[in-house]
């Protein structure tokens, strides 16, 4: 303790429970620091260490509580709630430390069991090893055995929102949603600032600054309701979320909104280009030098494997038969769709093998496989068209199971009064 400073206030950035969030906590350290205060300092150090190791960036700052920085002779008493909190935090922290140590040693053990190098044993290796040693066919992957960093297993905890003397840190503490409302406040402030700036520019006749193209946010979308709740760790209501969206949209529609782009982007998800992410099938050549591509597709219970030759003559073979394999025209039409979209009707030869399920599943699976195989030959625009029309998406619908106590998946037994 620096004895020449009568007291000091430190802002501790705690990031142990919230992986991507930083919450400020103010801890006043008195000159006659006793054991409890020492402990607090120690705790702060450990948090700082964790902060380094798990900080993933992408934080938003919440304005720190304003604590007046003037000397006082009054002894600050620690409230009972804060004491209890610190005890809980300490025990939790110790438990987490033990868990992490266990995990690190366990990982080395696992590497040893699998005969691999413990120093270069990644989480992917761990997952593979666990899948081999403890195989599980449980349908839900969440129900299968796993070995993960404890920070991914133990849910995050909210950090104390009040100081040692029991005063709330946040000026909006009593709104019950301090983080959320502070953001709304920020939006309003920024909006007002922009308006003022706009007036100023207009008065100075700097129209070229105003006539900038509007923000293009097509490549991103707003955080979902759930994501917003997770971000604030607060029980935000659905209607509050709508309110938030309305305010953000208003901010975005302002002509000078590009000045607040970083702030806006903190609340948006970047959209990834799906068709570019999936690795398309490659063009191969058979013995006769014909170029073809292969792809698999599924729909309901069915599975299909398609070999698509291009250029071709429009010949279709499904399980050794031609298109008359499908007696219903609807099925043939659905097979036609990707070809017509790519404009290659009569220019490709399709050899398909379909198994399991019935004709609907077969045609859906073949359609998906054909669309995927086409991706090898067509250009980016067509690929994007295929993706947007859902040709590259697997139809996730499955047969719903029958429930006990009723006749089918949804249907109930006939109800008779007596």
């Amino acid at each position: 303790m620096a004895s020449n400073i009568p007291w000091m206030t430190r802002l501790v950035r705690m990031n142990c429970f919230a992986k991507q969030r930083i919450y400020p906590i103010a801890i006043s350290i008195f000159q006659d620091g006793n054991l409890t205060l020492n402990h607090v300092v120690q705790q702060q150090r450990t948090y700082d260490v964790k902060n380094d190791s798990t900080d993933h960036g992408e934080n938003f700052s919440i304005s720190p509580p304003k604590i007046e920085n003037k000397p006082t002779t009054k002894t600050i008493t620690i409230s009972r709630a804060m004491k209890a909190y610190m005890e809980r935090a300490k025990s939790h922290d110790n438990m987490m430390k033990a868990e992490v140590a266990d995990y690190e040693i366990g990982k080395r053990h696992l590497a040893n069991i699998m005969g691999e190098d413990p120093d270069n044993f990644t989480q992917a290796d761990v997952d593979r090893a666990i899948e081999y040693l403890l195989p599980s066919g449980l349908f839900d992957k969440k129900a299968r055995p796993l070995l993960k960093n404890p920070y991914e297993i133990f849910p995050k905890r909210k950090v104390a929102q009040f100081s040692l003397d029991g005063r709330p840190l946040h000026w909006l503490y009593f709104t019950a949603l301090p983080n959320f409302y502070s953001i709304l406040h920020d939006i309003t402030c920024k909006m007002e600032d922009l308006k003022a700036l706009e007036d100023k520019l207009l008065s100075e006749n700097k129209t070229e600054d105003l006539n900038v193209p509007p923000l293009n946010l097509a490549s991103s979308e707003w955080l979902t309701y759930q994501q917003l709740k997770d971000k604030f760790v607060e029980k935000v209501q659905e209607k509050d979320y709508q309110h938030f969206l309305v305010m953000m949209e208003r901010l975005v529609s302002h002509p000078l909104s590009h000045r607040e782009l970083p702030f806006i982007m903190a609340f948006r998800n970047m959209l990834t280009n799906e068709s570019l992410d999936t690795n398309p099938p490659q063009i191969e050549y058979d013995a006769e030098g014909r170029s073809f591509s292969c792809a698999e597709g599924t729909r309901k219970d069915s599975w299909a494997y398609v070999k698509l030759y291009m250029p071709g003559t429009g010949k279709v073979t499904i399980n050794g038969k031609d298109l008359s394999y499908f007696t219903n025209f609807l099925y043939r039409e659905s097979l036609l769709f990707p070809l017509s979209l790519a404009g290659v009707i009569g220019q490709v030869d399709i050899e398909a093998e379909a198994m399991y399920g019935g004709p609907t599943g077969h045609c859906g699976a073949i359609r998906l496989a054909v669309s995927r195989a086409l991706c090898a030959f067509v250009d980016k625009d067509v690929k994007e068209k295929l993706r947007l029309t859902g040709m590259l998406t697997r139809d996730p619908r499955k047969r719903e199971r029958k429930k006990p106590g009723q006749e089918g998946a949804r249907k109930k037994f006939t109800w008779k009064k007596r």
Partner: protein
Amino acid sequence: MAALRQYSPIVNDIHRTFLTSLSAIQFRHLRSSTGHRQTERNERELNDSDSFRVYEIEGLRKSKEEKKTRRVAPKPFAPRYRSMPVDQDWTNVWPSAATFKWATVPFPVRQGYIKSSAENEGVIPAKYGNLELMKGPNFLHLTPAHIKKHCAALKKFCTPWPEGLETDGKCRHHFPVESITSDYVFAAPSIRDERARFVTIKFYLSDLELDYHARDKFIRLVGTRYNKDTDEVTFESGRCPLKAQNLDFLKFVLTALYFESWKYESWEKLKELSDMERYFWDLNASRKKCTSLLRTIKSLDDSSESNSDKLNYLPPDVSDDEALCSLPEVNKYKVAIEEIFNEGENIDTINQYKNAVKTLLNINSDVV
């Protein structure tokens, strides 16, 4: 009194030693389990005041202070994995297949479905006492190190692959008959298993020396045991109690079938058209119809004056069936029709038949 008080610690000590041993003896033979407790209480009383102790009769007066002390469970040993070195030999820890043991598995694996954060505080259950982990199968006994050890142990039983049997073709040439047997190893008082008696032998029919008749008879005798597509014959037997007997039996069956196939019994002459294994045009009505048709055409051709559109390939004399059938046009027709029946219909065989009929009857079109 003051003097006494002054020495009171000493007095107390003496008293204490004396009384302790006394009460211990006194109570031990009465109630061994409460002896220690009683001593403690007396001791406390002696410490609290200098008054004389009061003899307390057990059970006479219920004391409020008396509490049942709970027996402290012995602290469990630290689980085994705590003392494991990180570079241990896992095959010694987990030598054979066993149920998942939380204390032996050294990594903190977890399993269990957490519906929401309300369930188990949102934490996936750890391995301690985790039934899910115990229920599922594990391969902790089949790690790469295990497999290496197994292979090393088995290696002394292995012999090099015999020379001259490098390819499947050579194997088939030297060992045309393949026999398949099974042995069953399991933990039971008996080393016998009923299923071990089954013997299967396989061979290719083309490896046997058979002529057309014998081959046909062999196929008819073995029935469904012959696979037409692969040309393979499969016999299976479990009728005798021992494996060796079954193998002998199958060898006998094979020998008997072979020699039986070569025999030509008198009743085999009674074979009718419907009994035929293939379509023989020479035996069918088709040949008779064809020759009579050709004869009719010949007579009609002879009687007509014009020379056009006659069947020119017919010889002047058509009375002999054999001569007619040996004509190339008729022979082509014969081959075509036999192929349709024996090899099945497809575009090739049907077109062959069509062309044969066209040449046979002199049917032509400008458009083909």
